[in-house]
């Protein structure tokens, strides 16, 4: 059963292959595209911010590869994609990246569901920042459902942390159980 993918992320002491930069980039671009996907109805209400989630993951996993600057850049792109004021997603994402930098040493030691709780809090903060900017810009208020994507994003966290780690895990050697 060696071919079966392991359904849990690597333990901190496990040795992983180095992350390839094109993999990080392609996950970021793919999640940007998911964000640009048109939505409606229930999906619109619960749709997580994939880009924020992916940025958060890589900022926690690879703080030396990407950080506040890259997050800021992707935030700008998201602002253009949404046709909103320049800088609001940029601000929110760079805050997210900074928070990730702050947390990255300890978050990965927690079990996945504790990590997800941290992620929910961070995504909530990110959403709140955008909301504040929008309200100051004169947007109409939003209902509580505005914060549902933070919860749904956190629910996706375990999935993402397994999936994004697959290419880095060495093939199991035959001697290993």
């Amino acid at each position, binding site marked *: 059963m060696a071919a079966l993918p392991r359904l849990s992320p690597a333990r901190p002491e496990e040795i992983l292959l180095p992350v390839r930069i094109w993999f990080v980039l392609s996950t970021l671009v793919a999640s940007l595209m998911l964000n640009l996907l048109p939505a409606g109805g229930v999906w619109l209400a619960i749709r997580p911010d994939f880009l924020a989630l992916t940025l958060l993951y890589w900022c926690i996993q690879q703080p030396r590869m990407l950080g506040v600057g890259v997050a800021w850049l992707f935030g700008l792109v998201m602002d253009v994609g949404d046709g*909103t004021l320049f*800088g609001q997603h940029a601000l929110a994402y760079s805050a997210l990246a900074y928070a990730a930098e702050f947390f990255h040493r300890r978050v990965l030691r927690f079990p996945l569901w504790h990590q997800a709780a941290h992620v929910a809090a961070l995504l909530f903060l990110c959403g709140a920042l955008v909301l504040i900017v929008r309200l100051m810009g004169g947007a109409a208020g939003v209902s509580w459902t505005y914060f549902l994507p933070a919860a749904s994003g956190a629910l996706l966290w375990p999935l993402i942390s397994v999936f994004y780690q697959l290419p880095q895990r060495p093939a199991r050697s035959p001697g290993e159980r």
Partner: protein
Amino acid sequence: MPAYAHEPPPFFRRGPSPLARFAFFGLLSLALLVTDSRFAYLEAMRQAVAAVLQPLQSVATWPGLAAERFGGYFSSQRDLQEQNQALQNQLLAQAKAVQGHEDLVRENARLRAVLQVRERYGGGSVAAEALFGGRDPFRQKLVIGYAGEAEVKPGQAVIDETGVVGQVTRSFSGMAEVTLLTDKDHAVPVRVRRSGLRSVLYGAGAGRLPELRFMAANADIQPGDVLVTSGIDGVYPPDLAVATVASVERETGLMFARIVCQPAAGVDRSRHLLVLAPVAALPERPEAETDPESRRKNPRHRRR
């Protein structure tokens, strides 16, 4: 918390600390926010990023479009029959009006030619279908699709069979984004059909009905009045139905009446829409004497 918990030793230097970076990029974002909301300097930058983004965006919509087409293919025969029957009934009911309309159109064309009035509509209009709602919970937008060879430009008015739905604000190939009548602060110049009174209808955001603002408390307007486009701005052609006045509150303490209106079109329900041909350009607006004030007042609206 001791300093060494966060700082790498000096022989592993990684440039400025995260806090410094965050402060830098945070301030940069704030500067961008302020610049973008007050002035229109960043349009070129936005255009550049949008040019890179547009292919991505159209790729992102492919699966949705494919699913849509696939689903439509299998709509049941009974649905189609029912729809067909309903449409035939409607056609019969409207036949008389249509025939009368043709005469009127001909007569009108003749009169216009006689009076040498400029043609108000250039080119044809484009039939479109509502595809998705907007992505942004703050805005009332709609993405529509139309046959690929047609051309839709930002600024064109969008209507359904009963009235104005909104205005095209962005266009991609085969798709366009429509800002709906109900979007917050979306303005439509209107006229009260009964009294000829001119005003501007402002959207109020999701879940709220649009309002007429800044109408004097004694203005000649009453519930049930029909509002049509006045054609004054050159965006909407004149005499399209826009809304019906739902309620008028005149409080003695306030200078303006509070007038809430019900849109005539099924703004968030209609599926089949018509993008009207651009209105022929109006003559240049004469230069006002003190322009800079009005230019600066609301830069967000000029963009759309």
